[in-house]
């Protein structure tokens, strides 16, 4: 027994799409029966890349979240399929049997991660197998992990506490993407972006110089953070919870304080905050 999985460090992902294209190269037009049928030309993304643009000009942020099948321990697709068409192998890989799955389109909607795709022509559901056919031949990792240039992906046995992936998962405090789906995925993530609040402090009586070292306080959600504006007068609070109310205060001795209420429905760029001398 084992639990093969991938750990994805989103902070290291540059959005190069190598993983997506390597997957396409491995599977397009190539059957690996009985583990997987060939990926068709259109509409299937066994390794899907989700681009996340946050914030506003001139303080945007860019992240990419690669999303394969999560190889869930409690995979909803397995119970949605009939005839044992989807099953879990001893190594934890969830496999759709290309023969038995024929006509079972409902399994596509069983996956909350939308990682199962319907092949209209063959009338089968398909998805990532962690390149199980390659693992069975002795390869050490799936094509997607092999192709990653920055080491943003780790592959291995999550149940083996001595494995690189298990050690890294602990170190990076990795967790499921969308834990609320409660499927216990074997693909884990570090660095999934949350919300951020940013702005630039400007002194009304000295706009030709950046306002470095001004105290900025963010208060909310039962916590309070205090930072100083950087050399450009910029400040940023990263990793905030979504849909949460905060109070932001800018304070500098001899200047009128600035306070505003923030709600993190999206990321917030407050732009220039001009404070005036008293």
């Amino acid at each position, binding site marked *: 027994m084992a639990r093969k999985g991938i750990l994805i460090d989103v902070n290291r992902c540059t959005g190069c799409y190598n993983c997506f294209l390597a997957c396409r*190269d491995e599977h397009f037009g190539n059957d690996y029966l009985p583990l997987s049928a060939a990926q068709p030309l259109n509409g299937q993304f066994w390794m899907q890349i989700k681009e996340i643009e946050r914030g506003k000009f001139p303080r945007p942020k860019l992240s990419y979240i690669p999303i394969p099948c999560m190889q869930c321990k409690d995979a909803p697709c397995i119970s949605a399929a009939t005839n044992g068409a989807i099953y879990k192998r001893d190594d934890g890989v969830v496999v759709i049997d290309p023969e038995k799955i024929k006509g079972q389109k409902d399994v596509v909607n069983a996956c909350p991660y939308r990682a199962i795709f319907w092949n209209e022509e063959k009338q089968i559901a398909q998805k990532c197998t962690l390149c199980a056919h390659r693992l069975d031949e002795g390869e050490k990792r799936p094509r997607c992990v092999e192709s990653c240039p920055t080491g943003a992906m780790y592959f291995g046995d999550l149940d083996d506490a001595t494995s690189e992936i298990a050690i890294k998962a602990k170190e990076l405090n990795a967790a499921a993407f969308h834990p609320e789906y409660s499927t216990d995925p074997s693909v884990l993530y570090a660095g999934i972006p949350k919300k951020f609040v940013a702005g630039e402090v400007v002194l009304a009586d000295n706009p030709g110089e950046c306002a470095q070292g001004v105290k900025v306080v963010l208060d909310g959600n039962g916590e309070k953070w205090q930072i100083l504006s950087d050399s450009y007068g910029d400040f940023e609070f990263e990793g905030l919870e979504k849909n949460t109310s905060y109070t932001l205060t800018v304070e500098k001795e001899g200047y009128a304080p600035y306070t505003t209420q923030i709600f993190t429905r999206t990321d917030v760029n407050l732009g220039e905050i001009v404070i005036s001398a008293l």
Partner: protein
Amino acid sequence: MTEQVFTNCTNAGPVSVYVKDGKVQRIRPLVADEKDFKPWVIEADGQKYSPKKKFNIAPYVHGERRRLYSDERIKYPMKRVDFDPDGERNAQNRGKSAYERISWDEAIDIIAKEITRVKDTYGGSAISGMTSSHHNWGIVGYKMGPFARFMNMLEFTPVLDNPDSWEGWHWGATHTYGFYWRLGMPEPYDMLGDALQNAEMIVFWSNDPDTTRGTYTGQDSALWRTWLKEKGVKTIFIDPFHNYTAGAMEGKWLAPRIGTDTAMAMAIAHVWITEDLYDKEYVKDRTIGFDEFKPYVLGETDGVPKTPEWAEEESGIKARTIRTLAREWAAKRTILSGGSRGGEGGACRTAFGTEWARMMVLLQAMQGLGKPGRSIWGTTMGAPSDVDIWFPAYADPEGRIATSSVAGFLPFNPTKQRLWRLTLPDAVLNPPVSWYGEGFCGQSLDQQFIHFEYPMKGYSEIKMFYRYGGSFMGTLSDTSKWVRMYQSPKLEFVVNQDVWYNGETRMADIILPACTNFERDDVGEWGACGGYTCHASSGSNFRIVVRQQKCLEPMWESKSDYEIFTLIADKLGRKEEFTDGKTELEWVETFFNHSDLPKVIDWETFNKKGYHIINIKEDYKPTPALRWFAEGRDCDTPDPNNAKRGTDKAKELGTYSGKIEFASESLRKHFPDDEERPVSPHYIPSFEGHRSDSFKKYGLQLLSPHPRFSFHCHYDKHTDWLDDIPIHRIKKDGYAWWPARIHPTDASARNINNGDIVRLYNDRGGVLCCAVVTERIKPGVIHSYASSAKYDPLSPGNADSVDRGGCVNILTPSRMLSKNVPGMTPNSCLIEIEKWEG
């Protein structure tokens, strides 16, 4: 049949090719024996940095299998249906008429007869031909091999290339710090180690290395930037587009108005001078002309001090921000990353782009260029790399079958006439044309001052054009003039030889199908261009020379370029001259024996194993770029083309004075009164920018950088898997559109929504794209990559037609960098944009 695994190489990485029953199953990053790798280690601040034993190829190389079997392959020789070499040629229908399949015999017969007719009637100079770059890999088959060898035999008129990706550095920076033998790029040696050990900040100025990837070295350097980010090196990105490297490294983003980077640079110099924040000793000992430069910066010569407030007016970047940047740059050991190879970048492809490139060098000179952490480095080259084992690269004369001393017969071309790539259509349509500069001026600074005029006395205008590849609709500027050129009856005969259909292919009279480098034998070192970019494979973590094994027979009726030229030469009775009696595989072995590889591996082993990794020696000693110059020592870097190295002038740079020149001696000698490239650099507002008259009509600036998921025009439409990458193309209504990025304020002012099909237009033409509304672009700027391979005019054959393929270069100006600088200026381009209702 069992699976066979072959080795091969591409222009962005080495690969293993798995073939079963004559069909390619998969193409992986080359799978090498782990024992062959001896990774280097760089120690910095108690950490050890070392690459994994693997090759990080570029994304599009994962699509090679799809490109190999693409529907866009040219499968058979074709003839334009209304072309009759013995009757009506109907040149006016090029780009419009259909084609019919003909036999190889018929095609070769027509071409040989036309060559003979044109040569007999007008002389060899009436034949011209040119290639696109980089469409395959391997020195035997590369364009500078068979194509050049054959064309020299015909005594043709060569077309000189402009240094398209780094214009300002070539025509400007060389007059500031030399390096003409690198066409304006700095030497890259051991800069990765310098960065890890010494850098506190990196200013990426007009540079997106995660996208342009050091040209050939795939994604090996992506890991280096990950290290630098995780190490906490501060990064600044100056670019109108929040580029992909900025996204990955999460640096501070400054978005100046296009064409005003030089003003920002002047203001930084102003801060340093007025606040006494520059390296005065270095300026005194290592530079000349500061006394001419300083008064201009301070406004003593023109009454305009180049203050941060002045620069804010021009660039839109706040004066306080420029001030802080200048102070931090001076206070921290700061690397200037002015383009993928150190120099390059869109800012040098603008009006007067020489001035920006010169300022990049001068700013870094004011901070002690060459001292630890004070380099000009693109972050894509300069890993520890062995330079003792020589293997010829395509740009080395010794690496081309056209010029190498290993050839028994070397054809000599006596024709002195030249054409200039950017003005080739003008030369055909409206001669005469003239310009200064002998193309890639890598032999001397003085090559830049040679005057050329076409037609040259004693030679013919060109009558026959042999095009090899055909990407210019998507890469050069004001490109609809290429359609006009092709439709001129002055071009009596046009051939196009290529692997895939490209924008210009269907402008030819005869089309010939070439095969890919997977269908023939070759050899090549990953990332090595040689010549003017010597030791470029230091952009890879491991040097690897790949025996590019023929993986399958040429498909359909395609043939290798070498074989095609052999057939034509045979018809002309000159086969032996062309082939030197050798097959392609025999040329491979000849080059192998000519190189240093036999010292470390024998031919049989190399030929069978398919690769050899050249690791660094155990006693490797770094020689950081320009450290010798900063420290006043003889040059100790292994840069073989530095003519002063090893002489009594070994302490000097390649400028006339041997120092960094704030006032250029070479420009003073040749163009002392040139106000558009003055002796000491100036900020000159763009001829097509926010101060131009046309700005009232076309109020948006177009930024068209090199693309992220193609290599120039290669891959793109020949690899339709890429259409599933929305950064590259966006599928809508059954068509894969080229994206145009627009800020929400500009979009809403024009009632444009994300995903709308829009027309980008100006007086030069119109191009349809798919709108991407994003906060990552400066308001007032439209970002759409250059190098669409798909030229798809709504009205084929009509040069004025709207294109829906995404060739935004149709919109860019013909005007050159400045009056004496024949470089292209695609980023000085004003447009409007509107929702396309069809």
